């Protein structure tokens, strides 16, 4: 019973809600509360693994929960891309929770219970997104994710935090209601269904100018994918405590965005349909622009988290690019990048948080020589950076390889150039941080004794850095796991 797929999916969404309830109930008992949430995180991960064990990389038929409009249900199914996303999000939740407890306590932040409760709702909605079997269900959970992460961004309650949270909400809700919802309803009016279907649901239903316009409504409407010019929310969200930036704004929320983008490209339009109509060509160029421009902006940022945020904007566009290339290689590369970038970027963010907890430094220019006193943290940062840059033997090298193959397939040599330049730019804005940490002398009067902060804060990034290595060797396995999404 417990090991049935349907039950497991339900549990993956319900257990985080139990964690939320637990946080409310044990508000004033920190150890019990955080322990309970940890248990829930582990159980959620197990539930997702049960789904994996049952279904492997097959695409199952949908299970409907309730019919909301005639012909539109809240319904779920399992398919490789979503399953991969669920595994990443729930697995990294465990690590981030450990880290979050260390961070929040080490930093004397307030309102822990509210913080972890909202975090849990966000995870629950991510599970909903991952297992949605139609665009309506996905949209529903997409919006819950926005609303539940808003208190996390505003968490500190300072004027800065309130302002950042306002930008966050305005862009995410604004784009999703004004553009994405329009696109969803329009799709329904055109196709008569919103079910994710291999090969798309719009083939033969639309032609001409409508296709690129509809794609544009989706591409900009999925604000969480941070496609320029709707990327401002991501740097604004950096006012949130670092665990939020690490899991939600490097993994869950932004990946929900690009995941939606891929789902729309693969299952609503269909890769072949996009290739035939050429509707996504403009999007490809825009994504390429976004990749380069965000990297350039990242170089100018002195605030470490802001620099990482712009780096994320750039990396997310890789995935959008993968979809817009409209080839199977591109889609696969985009899908794999969800996993690889998640592992790399969460490492970088957790390192940034560790530096903040241990030495209260936020600006890169203040981080002279810190690598000498926190070698593990800076070592993990180096590995994460190399993975983002895309050097073997780290996970990040595979998706870039596939994307380049995809670009070569379609004869877009300029795109190959863009990907290469982007790698160089990554080197230029990430490695100097590590260099500064290890090779510059410490500031005068700074403590010279080795101190990495509490173990809960430095261990998690070390683990995810290790994960970047592991993913390199499982790159092939991941690729064949994802093959069904391109119909192979």
């Amino acid at each position: 019973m417990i090991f049935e797929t349907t039950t497991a999916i339900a549990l993956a969404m319900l257990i985080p809600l139990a964690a939320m309830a637990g946080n409310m109930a044990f508000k004033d008992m920190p150890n019990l509360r955080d322990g309970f949430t940890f248990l829930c995180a582990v159980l959620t991960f197990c539930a997702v693994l049960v789904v994996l064990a049952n279904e492997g990389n097959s695409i199952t038929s949908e299970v409907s929960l309730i019919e909301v409009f005639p012909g539109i249900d809240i319904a779920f199914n399992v398919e490789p891309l979503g399953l991969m996303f669920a595994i990443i999000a729930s697995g990294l939740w465990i690590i981030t929770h450990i880290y979050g407890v260390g961070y929040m306590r080490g930093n004397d932040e307030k309102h822990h219970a509210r913080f972890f409760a909202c975090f849990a709702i966000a995870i629950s909605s991510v599970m909903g997104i991952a297992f949605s079997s139609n665009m309506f269900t996905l949209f529903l959970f997409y919006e819950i994710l926005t609303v539940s992460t808003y208190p996390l961004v505003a968490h500190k309650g300072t004027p800065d935090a309130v302002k950042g949270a306002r930008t966050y909400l305005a862009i995410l809700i604004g784009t999703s209601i004004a553009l994405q919802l329009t696109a969803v309803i329009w799709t329904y009016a055109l196709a008569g269904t919103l079910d994710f279907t291999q090969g798309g649901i719009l083939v033969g239903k639309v032609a001409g100018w409508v296709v690129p316009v509809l794609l544009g409504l989706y591409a900009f409407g999925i604000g969480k994918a941070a496609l320029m010019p709707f990327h401002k929310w991501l740097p604004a969200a950096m006012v949130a405590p670092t665990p939020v930036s690490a899991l939600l704004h490097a993994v869950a929320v932004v990946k929900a965005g690009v995941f939606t983008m891929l789902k729309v490209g693969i299952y609503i339009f269909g890769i072949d349909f996009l290739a035939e109509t050429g509707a996504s060509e403009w999007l490809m160029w825009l994504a390429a622009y976004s990749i380069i421009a965000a990297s350039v902006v990242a170089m100018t940022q002195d605030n470490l988290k802001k620099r990482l945020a712009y780096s994320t904007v750039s990396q997310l566009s890789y995935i959008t690019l993968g979809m817009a290339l409209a080839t199977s290689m591109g889609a696969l590369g985009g899908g794999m990048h969800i996993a690889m970038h998640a592992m790399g970027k969460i490492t970088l963010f957790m390192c940034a948080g560790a530096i903040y907890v241990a030495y209260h430094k936020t600006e890169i220019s203040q981080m002279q020589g810190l690598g000498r006193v926190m070698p593990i943290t800076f070592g993990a940062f180096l590995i994460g950076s190399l993975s983002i840059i895309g050097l073997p033997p780290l996970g990040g090298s595979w998706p870039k390889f596939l994307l380049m193959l995809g670009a070569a397939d379609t004869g877009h040599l300029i795109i190959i150039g863009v990907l290469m330049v982007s790698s160089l730019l990554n080197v230029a804005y990430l490695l100097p941080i590590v260099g500064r940490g290890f090779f510059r002398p410490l500031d005068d009067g700074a403590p010279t004794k080795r101190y990495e902060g509490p173990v809960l804060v430095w261990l998690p990034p070390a683990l995810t850095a290790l994960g970047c290595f592991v993913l390199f060797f499982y790159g092939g396995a991941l690729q064949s796991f994802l093959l069904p999404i391109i119909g192979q």
Partner: protein
Amino acid sequence: MAGTVTPHDAKTLIEQLPILQVLVPFCTAPLIVLIGSRRMAWALAFAAAVISLVISYALLMQVYGGGFISYQLGGWAPPLGIEYRVDAANALVMLLISAIATVTLPFAYESVKDEITSKNHTLFYACFMLCYTGLMGVVITGDAFNVFVFLEISSLSTYVLVAQGAGRDKRALTAAYDYLIMGTIGATFFVIGIGFLFMSTGTLNMADLADRIAEQGTNRTIHAGFAFIVVGMGLKAAMYPLHLWLPKAYTFAPSAVTVFLSATSTKMAIYVILRFMFSIYNPDFIFALNVMFLVFMPLALIAMFSASFVAVFQVNFKRMLAYSSIAQIGYMLLGIAIFNLSGLTGTMVHMFNHGITKALLFMGVGALVLRTGSSFYNNLNGLGRLMPLTVAPIVVGGLSLIGVPGTAGFVSKWMLVQGAFENGWWVVAILIVLSSLLAVVYVWRAIEVLYLTEPAEGAKMAEAPMSMLIPMWILAIACIWFGVATDLPLGAASTAAEVLLSGSFGMVE
């Protein structure tokens, strides 16, 4: 389905339900005055509302799938006698009105004690019942002149109810006076319109009117009558630009009155417009179509944007909600103008969904007023932390007002947008979603005040009393429930839309 009942049949209670719907509250009102005790007054009013809710539900279930119930008053056959006629369209509106009355009364108990001078309490409940009678009567009756009679019953008692806000703020008196003048003009226009209809057809029964107009064709008198009716009811519905009475009346009326009126009285007027437009003036009627396209649509769009825009800049929570209501009425009119099954379903379901949403929000404000004495934002700082159980449902209401997926407000907007796309009016579709963004702004202003500002130093604030919290939570759960399990409102609304579109009163093809 009960058809026509001949005078000599002995009737079962079930067959008497339509008349009881009006009689129960109507008889409760004098009883309340005669008994004269506040507790008893409240208890009687509440009992009447509950009975009426049960009746509404029973009636809706009978016509849920289509068909109608005809009830002849005193056994006089229409068109001579007065006929009550229930179909899915008015059954849904009755369910809304009685449900709102049932949750408003428990809320009113504390709120009325706080806001209204104690010697007026029993009279307040009597007036409330009269107002309720009037609303029910307007909705249930199948006789055009009878609509006017009940309209006056509800309007006159509404003016009194609004004026009761004078205990807290004297401006309630001018607000009530404004409303009285405007409302009377509206009712006068309406009765003139009916006069024109009567003049050229010689009948007042709605079904009969429809038949005769279809038979004899149309003429300028009938057109003029239509114009008068739309303007008259447009005033009561606060249709832009006839909305000027609304912000003041809603702001200064006692909280309980605002809750009740915002959820019911404008919806009743929209219903009457729908009924006249579709059931009497056959919708194939090119004239009505032009009115919808050239008058309703632009006015609706202007209302959606201008009123929302004004709402953004309000510093008084209650007044902000009042402007938001004007914008939301725009959505309902727009659904009529879209003029297809989805659009009209959108209108019907938005009447219901917006009714529960706005009632919830006004209750929230009422609860805050009870504790802080004011609904201005600068007095509400940080209350989300001091009284979490009271403020949380306000957030749910706010989300539903925006139309966030998973809430009731989303369902109606979806139907409207879908209707617009089906017509190929994608500009209108985009305008609908854009105007929801303004709702995000004005709702979020309130939420930021409640949650993200620091409460006053050392402030201690108790949660609202249970008698307020329970109705609020019921409505909050309803806002989410009807956003996901949409069977009841959406099913009834689409039957209602079918009934209306088919042009007959209660018949479905």
